[in-house]
Structure formats: C-alpha cells, structure tokens
C-alpha cells in the first residue's frame, strides 16, 4: 500500500508543482494519473522514488516513510520501484542486455558491477524478461538500433529486472503511435494482473485510461481534482480536470 500524504513540491524558482496532494494506492491496483502537461504528474511520480525530493509531506510505503529514508535505505527502496519513462531513457550506445541488466544495479554489489560483472542468475533472468516482451533476439543490438516500441519494451524489461512491487510509468506511450501504445499498455496490464505489481501510470489519452485503469487520479496545477473510477469522468468532471476550453477527443 502506497500512501501519499500532503505531498508538496515547490521548485527552486518558486513554481508550485504539487500542492498538498493526498491519496492512497492499494496493493495490486492499476492507477492512472491524468492531467494537462505541467499539471504535476511527472513531479508526483518522481517524488515517489525521490528522483525529486519533495518540499514537504510524506510518502508511506507499507509503513516506511520514503521521504525520510537515508541514502542506503533509499537504494533499497528504489530497487523495489520500477520506472518506465516517456522517452524510454535507455543508454543508447549500450547493448540491449546491458540496459536490461541495469535494472539489477540496486541488488548487485557495486564493486562487481563496476567491472560489468553480473551473476549468472541475473543474466538468465534478463533473457527471460526480454523473451517475455518479445525482444530476446535483440539482446546484443545497440539500444538505439531498436524502434520506439522495441525500446519501450526494453524499458519495461529493465523495470521488471528489479522484481518491483510497484511500477511508476511516466507517460509510457506518449512517444509511440496508437497501435504500439496498446501493445505497451498490454504488457503493463499483464504485469499488473499476472504478477500483482501495483502500477501507477500517467496517461494522456482518456480511451487508454478507460481501457486499462482500475482507478483514476487527476491533477490540475498541482492539486488533486479527481479521484475515482474511470467511468465517473463525465463532461463536467472533464472540464474540471482539463480546463473549460478543453474538448473531448476519442
């Protein structure tokens, strides 16, 4: 269970990105985060694994306060939180398998991983994860030789290498075309349903939200403006979330 309590983030320039956001994500739920660009979705997700340090508020994960964790504790927490990014964030010049093995860095001993030595078990695991998302034959390709959809699958395989209890997906399909978007979302759905991994996923398209999410939270200018089922978003709610000028497409 992930509890977010009064989470506030003010950036150095004084921009209020999150304003006392509170909600809970029960274990195993697929939660979508929606909102306009700049509404604080990315900041929210990055506060959860402290890629961004929140200004105030708490994030409790199974009772542990992530915001108060020391560097060593944070490392142990982060390795249980997989993350998938809009721009995939693969290391382009490294091979696909090296990128996937990167997901184990929180587990392996730093001294050995510095000389690129991973346990045999991890390498086997990497092959399994790549096979699962259908890119096993690309293991020794350079990451930038892959298409966008394939790269995002590498990203998912990397997150799965962490044996995550939760996956944070920051606009995982925003850089992909609609057909590929569904295939990527299906992988996330599969991980959520079969492995019981909690998924917190920010999304742009409402149809994807309707199709995959169990629940929706919406942000507008850093404030939580909606928390409920996808089907509850009617036209009035929609305008509250996206502003009065917005129009529904799709």
């Amino acid at each position, binding site marked *: 269970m992930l509890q977010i309590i009064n989470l506030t983030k003010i950036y150095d320039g004084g921009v209020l990105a999150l304003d006392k956001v509170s909600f809970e994500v029960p274990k195993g739920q697929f939660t979508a985060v929606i909102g306009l660009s700049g509404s604080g979705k990315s900041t929210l997700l*990055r506060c959860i*694994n402290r*890629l961004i340090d929140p200004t105030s508020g708490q994030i409790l994960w199974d009772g542990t306060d992530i915001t108060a964790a*020391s*560097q*060593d504790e*944070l*490392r*142990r*927490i*982060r*390795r249980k*939180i997989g*993350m998938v*990014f809009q*721009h*995939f*964030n*693969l*290391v*382009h*010049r*490294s091979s696909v398998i*090296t990128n996937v093995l*990167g*997901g*184990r*860095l*929180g*587990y*392996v*001993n*730093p*001294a*050995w*991983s*510095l000389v*690129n*030595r*991973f*346990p045999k*078990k*991890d390498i086997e695991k990497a092959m399994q994860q790549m096979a699962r998302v259908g890119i096993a034959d690309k293991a020794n390709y350079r990451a930038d030789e892959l298409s966008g959809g394939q790269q995002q699958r590498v*990203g998912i395989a*990397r997150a799965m*290498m*962490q044996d995550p209890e939760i996956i944070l997906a920051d606009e995982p399909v925003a850089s992909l075309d609609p057909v590929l978007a569904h295939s990527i979302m299906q992988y996330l759905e599969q991980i959520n349903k079969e492995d019981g991994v909690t998924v917190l996923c920010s999304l742009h398209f409402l149809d994807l939200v309707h199709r995959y999410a169990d629940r929706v939270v919406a942000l507008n200018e850093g404030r939580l403006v909606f928390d409920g089922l996808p089907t509850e978003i009617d036209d009035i709610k929609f305008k509250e979330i996206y502003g009065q000028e917005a129009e529904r497409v799709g």
Partner: protein
Amino acid sequence: MNASSNNSSGNQPQKSTKESAMVHSVRLGLGVLVVLVVYAYGFQVTQVSLKEINETRRQESFLRILRALAHPDILEYEREEFPVEVPFYMPCPQGGEPQTQPDTSGPYMIVTPACAEARSEITVEGFNFEPNASGPINFVPPSGVNLQLGNLQTDSEGHFTSTVTLPRRQPVAEAQTIRAITRRNVGMPHFTRTATDTWAKIIETVFLALLATTFGVFLSIPISFLAARNLMKDVTSPMAGVALTVLAWPIGIFIGLQAARLASLASQSLNQNALFGVAGLVVSPVAGWALARWALPQVELQPPTRSMRVFRLIALLGAALLGVLGLFLLSFYARQVGLALEEPLKAFGFLGTFVANLGEIVNALLTLLVALVSGAMLGSLGGRMGTWVTGHTPKTAVLGVNFILGASSGAVLMVALGAVVEWLYELGNPLYTMWGPAIAGALIGLVVVFRNRQKDSLPVGMTIYYVTRTILNTLRSIEAFIMAIIFVALLSTGPFAGVMALSLHTVAALAKLYSEQVESIMPGPLEAIRATGATRLQTIVYAVIPQIVPPYISFTMYRWDINVRMSTIIGFVGGGGIGFLLQQNINLLNYRAASVQMLAITVVVAVMDFISSQLRERVV
C-alpha cells in the same frame, strides 16, 4: 522617436529623423576615428615599418636564408676530387721568371705571372677542365697545408679565369704549388647526417606526444567528472559530514602511509629469500582476491548485520593490504627481471628497461596511491558518520556538535595551508604558519557553521566543482612551454621533462573539454539508472560513460594532434624532441639543416592530422 510619429505637426517627425541621422553619422565618424587611433597605436607599439625591407642588406640576407631553406640538407653524394697542380714561385727566383711548359693533353693551368711577391694579385686560367664544375683554388706551401685563394667555376668548355690574391707567407726559394680542385658526384645519393639525426628526433617527438597524451587522458577522465556540473550539483552533505570528512582525510593519509610502509617492509623481508618472495608474489594476490570475494558478495537481498559488516570491513582491509604487498613484490621482481633481460634481448633490450622502469614507477607511486586511497576512504567514512550523527541527534545538539566540528576542521585546513606557505616561503615562524592559521581557520569554521545553521546540507559538490574548474583554468593558461622549463629543472633536460610538461597541460585542457561533454549528456538514462537504486559510481559507469565515449575519443585524438605540434617546439627549452635540433641549427645559422627539421615537422603534423581525422571518422 516613436512618440513624435504620432504628432499632428507634419514637420516634427522629419526633423527628428534628420537629427537622429546626424547623430548617427557623427557617432559612426567618432567610431571610425577611435578605431583608427587604436590601430595607429597598434602600429606604433608593434613597430610596423617598411624601412628595413628596402635595405639591400636585409634583402640579401633574407634571400640567402630563403635559398638555404629551399635546399634542405637531406641527400648528398659521395664526391670525387680532381686536383690539377702548377708550380709557382713566391717570390721570383734569382734567374728570373721560370718557364714551364704545361701538359696540354689533360686539364692544365696557366698562372700569370708565374712568380710573384706575397700578397700580390695573380691570374689563374684553366683549360680542359670538367665543364660546368666548381671547386677551390688553393695555394700549397712546402708544409702541405691548403690555403684557399678563391673559387673556380668552369664554363661549358671547361675553361675558367680567376684573379686571386696570394697569401702573406715567408719567402721560400723552391717551387710551391697552386692546386685547383674540381669535384664530381659519384654513385647514388644517400641521407645526410642531418637527415638521420632529424629522423631520430622526429620519432622521439611523436612518442613524446603519445606518452603525454596517454598520461594526460588517464588523469583527466576522473577529474572531468569532478568538473561536471550535472554530476556534482546533487552532491550535498550536512555540516557535520563535511567537517568530519576534512578531519578524516589527514588521518587516512597517515594510516595509508603507515600501511604502505608496513607492506613495503614486509615485501623487503620476503625478498631476502627468493623462494619466500616468489611465494608471496603468488599467494598475496590470490588470498587478497579470495578475501575480497568473500567480503563483497555479488547480490545482497537483506541488509547485513552490524557484526557482519565489521568482519567484512576487516576482510577488505586485509585484502587491500595483501594487494599492496603483492604490488610491492611485483614491482621488485619487475625491476629484477627487467634489468636481467636488458642484455640477452639485445636490440629489444628496451623492453627489459621498460619492465624495470614500470616496476620503479609502481614502487614510487604505490605509497602515494595507498595514502590517497586511504585518505579518501576514511574521508567518505567521516562523511557518512557526519550524516548519521546529524540524522540521529536533536537539532539543537547538532548545532553544538557542528560548532565544534566546524572549528576544528577549519583549523586543520588552515594549518595545512600554513604548512604549504612555510614550505614555499620558509618563514620559520610558527605564529604565522601554524598558530595564526589555526585560530583563523577555527574562526572561519565557526562563521561558516553559524551562517549555514538553517540549512540541512551544504553544496559540497558545487564547491568541489568550482575549485576544480579554477585550478584547471589556471593550469590551462600556463603554456606547456613554460611548464617544460619547470620540469627541466626537476627532471633535467630531455624528452621526459617534455612528456611531463605536456601531460600536465593535457590534463588541464582535456579535463575541461571532457567535463563539458559530460555536462551535455542526455539526463534521461541518468535518472533511469538512478531510479533502479544504483549508487553514484554505478550511475557514472552505466549511464554516463557509455554516452561520453565517442566525444572522449574524438577529443583525445584532437589533443594528440595538438601535442605533436607542441612537442616540436618544446625542445626549445630542453624538453626533448625535434625542437632541440631546430633551435640549435637556427642559432648556428645552419638554415639548410633547420629546413630539414621544419620539413619533418610539417610532414608529421600533416600525417597526424590525416590519421586522426580518419580514425575519428571510423570510431565516432
């Protein structure tokens, strides 16, 4: 102007435009005037003048040098000499002018008059000589020395006429000799001494540049990370952490020095007996490796218990000591083996010397390295302790602790600085170099703690960043040429001083270029790797290094290029390489030889340029 355009009066805008146009042209005129004055002063200061060019003396010497440069002294022929002699009386004998009938079948000379007083003019005419040949005309007294009177230059029929002045000699009764010599090239051309010397030096130059680049690259890679803003800005530490780091460093260095001495002593006593020595050489790395393997398990799912951590720490320290011992032994045997191999390897003896030198270098650097590593380790331990203390004590108590730690670390820093001042200026007064700085440092520490009492953490990373940048910028502004002068003083003249000077300059220049590449990498992979729970070092290895490999290679090549060019002149101050020959020949006015060296430099730089551009294209 904008306001006037709205004015109802039609004249006004026009007038103002006119005015502004005038102001504009006046400004332009003044600007041109200022530029003119600046350049006029520039001409005066740099003494631009064509007066000297018009002097014939200048033109002649210019032409002479230019012609010499156009005839590089690369190839020469073996030469055959053809002397032709005619007897000559100086002064004239008693019986009047002697009559000699020259043999007209071969080359012959007629001297008019056939006898003369010393220092008088005579005319030498030659017939049937080698056509278009040149050579000296010598006067040969009975002693047999050649006194050159002048030169001959035959025409296409082998004839020449030359008027020369006789030397000032004691009168001699019998006949002396006038000898004309023509020379002819024989056989194939071969390289001159200058050419072979230049070849040897240009090889030295290229390798000088190679070594300097290699040394420089190794040092500048880690430094470039310290000078990269995007890596350093997240590095923060609470006050207590910073202070404890500062305090722990000198202790660490001291412990490291002691440990290195211990290992060195142990290796020396082991080396008393060859059997023990070799056994130690084999056993110490194996045992060290095994200990390290045990202390660093590949994967750890649960945090280890405290006692386990202590055991591991002890094991790691043991492994490190064993490793250092092994390296000391290795350096000893490298020297022994290398020196022993020098003789039997003959032409490849330099390989043996190389191994011996490596052993020497490892031996010399090991103590320093151990001290630094131990300082760094204890420093980081201090930082962790400080962070832990800050997190586990109430806020008011933290401030008290911070005051104590801040004052003592400030004092330690300033005392270290005082020691440097003492070393450089030899003041000999501990009030100025020890007690004074200690008190000042403590006060500064207190002020820093007081001013930062509200902050949770200090931007340590950015401080390191700025310090590194400043040092790099200062070093970079000192020309390698000037560094060479200092290294020549330390290492005596020769290419090694040049290597060290160029290396230092390379570090300063490359670290800056590299760090700018690090700053321009994509941040995405960085955050992705951080999100997996990777440590800072892992993030650098997995997210930073793969991104910077191509620009690093490209900059390294570029730097090698620069180093080749720099190494050609570093010999001017005794730094080895071809510059030494070039300077020598210029000073001796031997322009034909200097021309060879200039040619060699041009060829090498052009070839290097071509190779590096080819390699860059292929790799990047």
